Each structure stands twice: as C-alpha cells, then as structure tokens.
C-alpha cells in the first residue's frame, strides 16, 4: 500500500465528486440548496488544488504508467473545471423557473453530476497514455452530454435535439472505433509509446485509414466541416446552460483529443497530415462564418460562431508542439470566458424574453452595463484587440505561421472580417435599434450581476494585461 502521488488528488476528487453530489440528494429534499453548495465548494476546491500543482514541462509525471499529468494536462484540467463551474452557475436559475419558452428543469444534483462526469471524461482524454483509456475518456465525456441535452423532459425541442445528437454521435463513435482498430492493427499495441515507435518506423495504408477515420470521428465532436450539421440544431434545442457546456467542455475535450494525438503518437507524421488539418481548418471557419451571417436566434447563432471558432483553433495544430499547445490552451481559456459571458447575458435575456436578436433591442438604453458586457464578449469573440479574443487568435495564427502556412493564416485572418460582420449585427441590435415597448424589462439577480461583471473584467484583463498569460503558462516558455 503506497501513498497516492499528490498530482492526481484533484482527479480523484473529481471522480468521487459527482457521486457525493448525487448522493447528497438521499439526505435532503429536492428543493434544498445543499447539492448546489457542495458542487460549488468541490469544483472551486479542485480548481485551487490544480493551481497548486507545479508545472513540469516535457514528459510530465506518470501514474501506473498510463495516466500522465503534464503541464498541458494541468492547464486543460483548469479549463475544464472552469467551464464546469461556470456551467453550474449558469444552470442554477433554470432550476428555479423556466426560460426561453421552455419549462423549468428538475434534479439539479444529477445535472451537476452529469456535468462533472463529462468534465472527468475530458480529463481522462488529456491524461490518457493508451488508446483504450483515450477512447473511454472520450465516451465518458460524450455520453453525459446526450443526457444533458435531453434533460428538459417536457421540452420536445430538447428531445429532438438529443435524438439527432445521439444518433450522429454514435456514428461518429463508430468511426473513431474503426480508426482505433486499424491503429491497433498497424501498431500491434495500445500504448502511445508503441504506436509512436511504429509510426516513426514507417507508415502504411492501414495507418492512413486509421488517421482518416479518427479525424472524421473527432471532427464530429469538434464540429468540423462537414460534420458540424448537428451543432446548430442541438445548440438550439438544448437548454441554454447545456449549450454553453457543450460549446466549451466538449470542444475542449475534442481539441485536447486531437492535440494529444497529433503531438503524441502521430507526431512523426505531422507534416503529412498538415494539409488535411489546414483544409479542415480553412473550410470549417469559412463555412461557420457564412452560416452565422443571417441568424435570428441567439443560440443557433452561437452554434455557428463556435463552429467557426473550431476552425480557428485547428490552425494551431499546424505548429510545433510547445507553441501549438500554448496557443490551444490559452485560446480555450479566452474562448471559455468570452463564450460564457455571452451565454450569461443571453441567459439573463432568456429569463424574461425569448432568446432572439429582436429581444436585444434597446438594451443599451434600458440596461447599459449589460449591453457593454455583451459588446465586450462579442468583440472578444471577433478577435478585436485589446480584448482577450485577439490575443487568443494571435497565438493560434502565430503557431500556424511558425511552420509557414501563410496562405491559411491569411485566409483565416481575412475571415475575421466576416466574423466581425455578424458579431456587429448582434451588437447593432443591442446598441442601435430602438427599444420597443412590449419587451418585458430585465431584472438581474445579485449572482448574475456579480458573474457578468467578473467575466467582463476577466475578458478585458486577460487581453489588456496579457502578460498574465506568461505567468499562467510559465511552463511553456521555449
């Protein structure tokens, strides 16, 4: 019986955490705040603990040979936990009264538990060292999402979305599995080191088929072209907090999956798969931007915008490992904060009106602070300096340009204009359009106000004082 290494304590806590939350339901009635409190405390505790782990660059530390905790892993954990925490905060109100024409939701404890499971799945993906764990992580991250999408039993949109999601998701799983099987056949083993050795030794069609299927499978979760078709419907059908969690946690998981794969076992053939990545990135961000041009419903709009963001983030995968990973993690942080800020604002709107562009009219007159927060998040997503989004995108393009993909970078940068166009559409309806009388006024609870302010400051601060990023990513100086 040996002592548990400290660096996996957060993972263990996260593992037992959902059981505690759900279990606490046994001892209290369904109205009580206890599960919610426990959830907050637990997630914050994990976040703090994660920040205590020293960032060791390079191979990282191992736990029974196939659970690696390296700096990238730690930072991804932070992103995921942050996302979970914000998601939990966002979801609180939806269990008190309905929103956006949807009835109120129930069983907050289970809801939180599901989110926690998904988060743990993501963590498993970043710390896996063999394809089996890898696959399991991905599934653990995905399956709760199906459930969460359909959480609102009384809402048939949710159910339809969930149906589409799970059917397509299972197909994608099948693709991945198929890819994994060929990879296994090619390498003759599951452990990344074996695969790495085999790939380095030489390639064969088997490997390429595997790569193709793996990319297509993960392309579904990362909403790459043309696998993104589920996203708009699911994002619109799912409850708002679930949409937020989907757009951050599952994207983070997926990109982490790709990063681990490309910079891990497939590192020797990065040059050969660079064109594929570049094409995926370029087409995806273009299509995402085009789709978002003429939207009228907020969540669907955010779906397209997040498709485009996925395209942008793919650009980073072209760069060398250190730069690429830095870019991805930093961008995920920024993206998480900006996205959640947007979703909090939409949520506040949604509690009193339906979530469409039209219900933003005259926001700047009635509630300037909210309008400012909205503008901040939108400009940040559009990548306008000095907000965080710009520096995130700059990291991505920098990483892409390191290996000389100027064409792609130019294309992506020019697409920013397109993106700015539709983000401005939204800002317009909030700032320029005159308010019309029959919109119910907005009331912010203390918590909502606090979170919105906190997030806005975060967006501005991470961008405005970007040297914070150096301290966070101290492990990534090269």
């Amino acid at each position: 019986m040996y002592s548990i290494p400290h660096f996996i304590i957060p993972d263990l806590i996260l593992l037992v955490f959902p059981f505690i939350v759900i279990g606490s339901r046994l001892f209290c009635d369904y109205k009580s705040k206890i599960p919610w409190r426990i959830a907050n405390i637990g997630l914050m505790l994990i976040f703090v603990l994660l920040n205590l782990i020293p960032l060791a660059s390079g191979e990282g530390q191992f736990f029974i040979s196939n659970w690696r905790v390296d700096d990238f892993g730690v930072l991804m954990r932070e992103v995921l936990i942050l996302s979970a925490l914000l998601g939990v905060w966002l979801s609180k109100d939806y269990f008190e009264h309905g929103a956006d024409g949807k009835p109120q939701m129930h069983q907050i404890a289970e809801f939180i538990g599901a989110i926690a499971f998904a988060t743990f799945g993501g963590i498993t993906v970043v710390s896996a060292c063999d394809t089996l764990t890898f696959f399991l992580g991905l599934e653990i991250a995905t399956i709760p999402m199906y459930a969460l999408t359909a959480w609102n039993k009384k809402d048939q949109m949710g159910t339809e979305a969930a149906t589409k999601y799970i059917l397509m998701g299972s197909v994608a799983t099948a693709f991945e599995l198929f890819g994994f099987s060929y990879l296994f056949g090619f390498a003759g083993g599951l452990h990344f080191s074996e695969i790495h050795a085999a790939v380095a030794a030489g390639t064969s069609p088997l490997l390429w088929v595997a790569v193709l299927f793996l990319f297509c499978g993960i392309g579904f979760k990362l909403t790459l072209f043309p696998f993104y078709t589920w996203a708009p419907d699911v994002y619109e059908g799912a409850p708002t907090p679930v949409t937020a969690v989907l757009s951050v946690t599952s994207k983070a998981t997926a990109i982490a999956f790709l990063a681990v794969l490309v910079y891990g076992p497939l590192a020797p053939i990065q040059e050969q798969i660079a064109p594929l990545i570049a094409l995926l990135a370029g087409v995806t961000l273009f299509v995402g931007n085009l789709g978002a041009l003429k939207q009228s419903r907020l969540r669907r709009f955010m779906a397209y915008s997040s498709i485009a963001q996925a395209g942008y983030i793919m650009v980073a995968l072209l760069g060398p490992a250190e730069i690429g990973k830095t870019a991805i993690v930093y961008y995920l942080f920024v993206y998480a904060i900006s996205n959640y800020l947007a979703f909090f604002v939409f949520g506040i709107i949604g509690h009193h009106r339906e979530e469409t562009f039209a219900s933003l009219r005259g926001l700047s007159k009635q509630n300037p602070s909210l309008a400012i927060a909205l503008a901040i998040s939108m400009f940040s997503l559009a990548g306008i300096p000095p907000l965080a989004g710009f520096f995130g995108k700059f990291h991505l393009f920098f990483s892409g340009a390191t290996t000389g993909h100027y064409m792609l970078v130019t294309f992506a940068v020019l697409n920013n204009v397109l993106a700015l166009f539709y983000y401005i559409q939204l800002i317009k309806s909030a700032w320029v359009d005159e308010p019309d009388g029959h919109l119910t006024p907005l009331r912010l609870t203390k918590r909502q106000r606090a979170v919105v302010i906190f997030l806005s400051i975060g967006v501005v601060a991470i961008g405005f004082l970007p040297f914070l990023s150096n301290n966070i990513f101290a492990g990534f100086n090269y």
Partner: protein
Amino acid sequence: METILFNLIWVIPLLTVLVCAPISASHEKVLKALHATSATFVLFVVCVLTYRVYALSGTPTDEAAAPFLLRFFTDIPWLSAFNAHYIVGADGLNMLLLALTAFIVWAGVLVSWNIKGNQKVFFALIQLLATSVYGVYMSFDLVLFFVFYEMEALCMYLMIACYGSGRRDYGGKKLTLTLAFGSSMILATLFGLYFEGGVHSWSIMELSKVTLPMDFQMWAFPLMFMGFAVSSSLFPFHFWSPDGHSAAPTAVSMLAAGVMMKMGAYGCLRVAMFLMPEAAKIWLPYVVALLIFNVVLGPFIAIRHKDLKYITAYSSISHLGLIFLGLAALTPVGLRGASLQMISHGFLTGLFFATIGMIYERTHTRDITEMGGIMRKMPFLGVGFVLAGFAGLGLPGFSGFIAESTIFIGAFQQDSTLTRVVTILAILSITTTAVYILQTANRMLHGNMPAKYEALTDGCLREKLVIVVLVACLLFIGICPGWISEILDQSIAPIFAKISAAAVPAVGG
C-alpha cells in the same frame, strides 16, 4: 521624467475612462469636466514634449533605437509567449503626429459637448479612440502597433452607429468593416515579417537590420501597403470614407479624417516601405496609377455632391492622395512633403468637420442647396469655414500650401513617366479643388438667406475657442514651416537611407 510623461500620453485617456466608470451617467457636468481636463492635460504634455524633441534635435539619442533617432525610448519585454516587447519612442515625425492627435482629441471633446444620448459612454469611447491613436504613433513594436491599430475598430462602430446621424448603422458598418479588412491584411503579413526575416523579433529596428527574402516581399508588400492604404482611403478602398464620415458625429468625423486616416499613411511609411524597401521600389510606381482617381477625380466628385460632409470626405480623399504621391515619389522631399501633408491635413480637416458640425447643429441640414447667406447670422463660423476652405485649396500662409508645394516639387524629382504624369495632373487639379470649395462656401454662406435662418446664433465661446486654436495651428505651420521641416527631415533621413540603399533585383512588377 520625460520618458514617464511620454508613456503617460496613452495611459491618461485610459485612466480617465477608469476614473469615470463608477460615476453615474447622470452627473454629465462632472464627467465632461473630467474628460476635458484630461484632454487638455495630454495636449499640454504633448506640446511640451514636442518642444523638447525640437530642442534636443541634433543631440545623440538612445543607441538601442538605431537607426531611428528616438527620444524617450522605452523597451520592456511584454509577451514572452511570442517575444513581443513594449517599445515606444519619439522622433520628429511621430511626435508631430501625436501633437496633431492631441489637438484634434481636445477639439473633439469640446465640440461634442452637448451630444445626444449617453454621454458617459460616448466620451469614454472617444478616450479609447485617443488611446489607440496615440499608441499607434508611439509604438515601434509590431504587435503593440497592431494592437493599438485595430483597437479603433472597436470604438468606431459604436460611436457612429449610436451617436451618428443619417444612415448611421450602414455608415458605421461600412467604415468599421473596411478598416478591419485593411488591418487583417496587415496582420496576415506581420507573421511573415517575424519568421522570414530570420531575426525572431517584432521590433521595427531589429527587422530593419535584415533584408527580407524577395519572394516574400513581393507578395507581402502589396498586401501590407494596401492594408494600410485602406484606412487612408486610397482608391479603390476609399468607399468607406464618404458614407462613414457623413454618418459619424462631429467629433468622430474629426478624429477619423483628421487622425485615423493618417495612421494608414504613417504605417505605409514607417512599416511597409521601411521594412520592405526593395518591393516598395518595384510596386510603388504602380500605386501611383491609383492616385489618378484620388487626386484628379476626387475633386470632381466633390463638385457633384450637395452634402457638406460628402464634399469634405472627397476633399480628404484627394488630399490623402497627395500624401501617397509624396510617398510614392521615393525622394526625401517627397517623403517630407507627405509627412507635412499628414499633419497639415489633420488640422485642416479637423477644422472643416468642426465648423460643419457646428453649422449643422444650428441649421439641422447639411445640404448646401438648402442653405444660403448664413454668413450674416454666424459670421464667426462662416469665417472659420472659409479659412478651412482656403487652407484646403492650398492658399499660401496656411499649412496646406507648404505641404502641397513640397509634395509637388518632391514628386517631380522622381523621373519615372507615370509619376511625372500624375504629378502634372495633380498640380493642374488645384483648380478643381478651388471650384468645389468656393462653390460650397458661396452656396452656403453667401447669397440670399432663407427666412427660416433668421433665428440662428453665432458660435459660443467654446466653439470659437476650438476654431481659433485650429486656425492658429494651420497658420503657425504655414508661416514658419522651417523648424517643422527640419525635425521632419531628421526623422525621415534613416527611412530614406534604408530605401535608397535597397538594391532592386531584376524582378518585373
């Protein structure tokens, strides 16, 4: 001490915004007082520093800043993730542009004293815009430069769309998106500058020490040059400026036309032409062809327009065309003329838009066919407008004449056919400029006055102050241009040295 002051130039506006943030929007007086004070303070600081730069000229400067002669040089590591630094400094050129900016911002704050809508947000946005412009002129690190350069897009749309007039949403979108298009063209080439040069650095000085590979320059230079030229409304990217200006509130028009449009030309000179001189030598002769539209056709279009702001916008287009003529001439005099024109046109167009805004506040129309004879009711504003017009048509005594004649003489030194033709056309088109300016002045100020204008009043003290100060600047530059061209020459010398040293390989355009 001076260095700290210099860095304060862009910090103070931000601080003002932060200070004003907690004050509730209902205390308009307090807010406006704060903003006015900070603008005035910055103006004061900038003037002092400009004088210092002039006084110090000739004395040796910071070695680290070579090849430039930079005062108040600061270099702090900023983003170790991609090795970006915080590098600022002042040579004659950007110091004068800073002074221009400070004047225009100050005037802008005063002009928009009683603007409709949420004043708190508006003034905050003006200060942000000021920050971005100051930053662009100060910074010598490409990342820093670009961050400040694109910041303006953030403020511009909100200011135009929320506080503008006419088709404000359309104009705001057009302006913001076109500018964003330009800046993204720039961003696309920045990475190449970083990696292709071999020195992994964003510092302009560092990059200027190497010669970038030719094949890279050949595609990067046009991209970057046009990217910058977009914000200086070089044909065919001029379409944003008339709609944008006509939609924008007065202060924003002043800042946009007076200062922001210079950022583009400044970038062309300081970054594009300076870092990629070989490609510049190959490409610029072709750029000259575009100027035929700006310089020759622009005034004609202005003749056909009835809206004061459209007329002024097209006149700005033609004046900025002259800047590019000076740049494309690639002679020291031409470059100096271009920089002179940047400064002179800044004051000039600021005065133009200021007076137009004041007149518009009273007549509630900008259609010159509806006005007439208002000189009788508002002689002061009328005289201000006429003076702006005279400065615009290059009347001796005003800065415009100095700049234009310098450009003409400088451009004529360039012995390439296209440049000669365009220079000759440009010289001949001073008549057209006179035509639209006089026609506007006559229609609006002279002749019979409609009865509805009987009740109009002349400018109040605040407005008179703005006009007087701007006119004084124009006259000051116009009457004693010696010192200004002296410090400009010093700061242009290294740029021209690099350009003339560039050996053009035998590559066709």
